């Protein structure tokens, strides 16, 4: 097991290097200039843009800039944002709480919906419940979040006037009021994201459970006289969960990455909106840092998923 872990961790190093090279090259080749807006302003002489480019080393060749970035990164320096003139790690940390709160709770909501509904639908295939659940699941993942988001705003904020649609990270309230306000403003973004995710997971859980429920060992368990409930929870779900765990684990990096469109609609100051505004402003150090964190998380959660398999299914061994 530890040898397996070591080997996996060793593979991580070259893959991260490879990822960073690709990211950096793509960003360097992409069109745009962080100080482009200055060029269109008649009151800013062109020398300012040139001086800024020189100051931030944008005129160096790509490989040199990459080396600078890599060395700084190895020292734990994430870079300096061209646009905000502050350290990138602070910028990301500022965005983390809102991201974790909104995206995290939407994933929890998705799981809370998908697991019971999926399992229940699979144990009674083609029943009325299954049909209804299926229909809703289809609707759920067919509707894109930018559509449901705006629909929710129109219904709950504008027509009914119940919920605010501008998300604020620092609420002016304290104590219980703060929790209440936070809850109110989180409902819509969390529901939009959670139900979308939940819908596709429901379908996934259902088919995974259906695959297992027909196997002989389940029939055997039932024949032994084990209660149906125990058969489902102990024998079926545990085995059916293996593919679901992969799916969920691979989804986890997305929690940190945020949900770009939903964040934009509800003005949630998450990492997704940081990424998109940095891309629009050509703020390379921020884009680089966010995408790199993202890459690290994907690799990490892949590893975690692999390890979880072993726990769920002891037959899997690591060599």
């Amino acid at each position, binding site marked *: 097991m530890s040898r397996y872990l070591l080997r996996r961790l060793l593979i991580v190093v070259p893959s991260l290097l490879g990822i960073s090279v690709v990211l950096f090259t793509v960003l360097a080749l992409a069109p745009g200039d962080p100080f482009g807006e200055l*060029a269109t302003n008649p009151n800013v002489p*062109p020398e300012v*843009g040139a001086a800024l480019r020189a100051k931030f080393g944008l005129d160096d060749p790509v490989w040199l800039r990459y080396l600078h970035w890599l060395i700084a990164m190895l020292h734990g320096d994430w870079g300096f944002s061209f646009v*905000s003139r502050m350290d990138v790690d602070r910028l990301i940390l500022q*965005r983390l709480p809102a991201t974790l709160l909104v995206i995290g709770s939407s994933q929890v909501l998705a799981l809370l919906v998908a697991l019971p509904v999926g399992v229940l639908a699979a144990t009674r295939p083609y029943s009325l419940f299954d049909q209804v659940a299926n229909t809703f699941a289809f609707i759920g993942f067919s509707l894109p979040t930018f559509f449901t988001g705006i629909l929710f705003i129109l219904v709950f904020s504008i027509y009914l006037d119940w919920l*605010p649609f*501008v998300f604020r990270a620092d609420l002016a309230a304290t104590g219980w009021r703060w929790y209440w306000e936070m809850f109110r403003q989180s409902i819509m973004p969390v529901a939009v994201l959670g139900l979308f995710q939940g819908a596709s997971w429901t379908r996934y859980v259902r088919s995974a459970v259906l695959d297992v429920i027909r196997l002989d060992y389940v029939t055997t368990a039932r024949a032994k006289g084990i209660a149906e409930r125990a058969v489902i929870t102990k024998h079926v779900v545990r085995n059916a969960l293996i593919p679901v765990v992969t799916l969920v684990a691979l989804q986890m990096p997305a929690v940190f990455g945020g949900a770009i469109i939903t964040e934009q609609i*509800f003005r949630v100051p998450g990492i997704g909106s940081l990424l998109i505004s940095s891309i629009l*402003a050509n703020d390379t150090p921020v884009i680089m840092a966010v995408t790199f964190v993202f890459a690290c998380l994907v690799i990490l959660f892949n590893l975690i998923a692999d390890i979880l398999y072993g726990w769920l299914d002891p037959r899997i061994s690591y060599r």
Partner: protein
Amino acid sequence: MTERELRDLIAAVKVGEVSRRTLLRGMAAVGLSAPFANLLLLQAGVAQAADKFDYKPTKAGGGGPLKTLYWQAPTLLNPHFAIGTKDQEGSRIFYEPLAGWDNDGNLVPILAAEIPETENGGISQDSTVVTWKLKKDVQWHDGKPFTADDVVFNWEYAADPATAATTIGSYKDIKVEKVDTHTVRIRFPKPTPFWADAFVGQRGMIVPKHLFENYKGGASRDAPANLKPVGTGPYKFVDFKPGDLVTGERNPNYHLPNRPYFDTIEMKGGGDAVSAARAVIQTGEYDYAWNMQVEDEILVRLEDNGKARGRAEIFSSGNIEHIEINNTDPWTEVDGERASAKTKHPLFSDPAVRQALALLVDRDSIEKHIYGRTGIATGNFVNNPPKFVSKNTRWEFNIEKANQLLEQAGWKRGSDGIRAKDGKQLKLVYQTSINAPRQKTQAIVKQACQKAGIDVELKSVTSSVYFSSDVANPDTYSKFYTDIQMFTTTMGEPDPTQFMRQFLSSEIASKENKWQGRNITRWRNEEYDKAYTAAEGELDPVKRAALFIKMNDLVVGEPNVIPVMYRPRVSAISQKLKTHLSGWDNDLWDVRNWYRET
């Protein structure tokens, strides 16, 4: 009105026979804009009566929160580093300039005790020295006094190329000296009729010397105060999350009595303009939303509702949506450069083609169906302040006339309906940025051109690429590798000196200057260059305005550019909020006077 009459009138105002207001109205009638007329009076030594804003609250504070929405959020809070308006707006909550511009183009003293005038000795006879008297008893938020040293420091700071301040243009050519603790003197290298640039308005915000002293030049990016502003403004800094939120609280020691009214201020960023308009006009979640780049149709629909909690406020500015004509050949490469100034455009070298094109822009339909209240059809490139607006130009939409013109010039229709002459077909590529109103305008122009036998190919480029200065990208607006292109250009201050640079031969964009020259149409006109040089040194405001009007007429007469829409600025405001907006300054330039009616 002749020059002579004007002079008599100014003299009458001086001795009090005629009120300022009457004069302004009279000038507007003859096409002189208010800001111009005001500057004219200033130079003639007539005291400036800034328009009085009716401020009702009788004590400071107690107004609760002021919530503003900026769909582009500020990303930094040092006014000298501001990249776009959004950053200036964020800084303006905390920092103040010596004076700001109101919507009539009047200078309003903020940190200055009074506006320099010839009469009070503020402006020297030859307009090379301007003396500012500063307001006394002004404190920075940390309690330190605001003095002339701070003003002088701001000049040193911004003028140092190593600081890489975006405001350098306003400071690099002047000399600033301290006269006493509350007086500074600005020396200009040559007579400067438009002197109100440094320390004024958007680029004039003043940062404290004691916090930035050690961070001048190369170390500028390390100043902790870059992210934690300490200013003199009506609100003190509380928190800043770049790209998301700026918050401030009432400054109890503000230098104006009974101000500010609100206890806290919040500037929330992100999202899009339409939903920002909703949050102000429909749900009333926010009090103010900046820069409503929303089609008027949508704004009207939001407002047109018995329950509407806000409205759109439209105020004049100097923005002009225009079509530029390429004077060079974008399709031939000369010395490794397309659209090189050494070439001539194969079609536009015939003036008839240019004139026909100008006749084919249906401004009426564009105004009515696309821009609504947010655009005014115009035939002028300079549309504000009124004193600089030409009365000599007209525009019309006339397909028949365009056909005639082209026919007479020898452009004959071919079998495919496209006109041609000497084997050259009238085929144009028309580029602009991706933006719904622009694509609709393109379609309207294309349709009219078709009827006149001109084939137009439409091209649209993502804004982030189109407006970038990326030297490697062929699709930027400054490279102008198409026949015609359309975008909005902004006149930032109530004087066209900077604005009109963009047609000087010396400013032609080329490979050599990395396409950073402002003359994108690559137009060469000696008469224009001469008029510009004359205007730069002309101290007589009336003659000076006449020179700018002449420049405008030259540019649109040929035409070198076809003005389409003069675009006022639009904000969304809650019904009860009383604001004081100006098209010549930041939206928040007078936030100290904002209040809510109860």
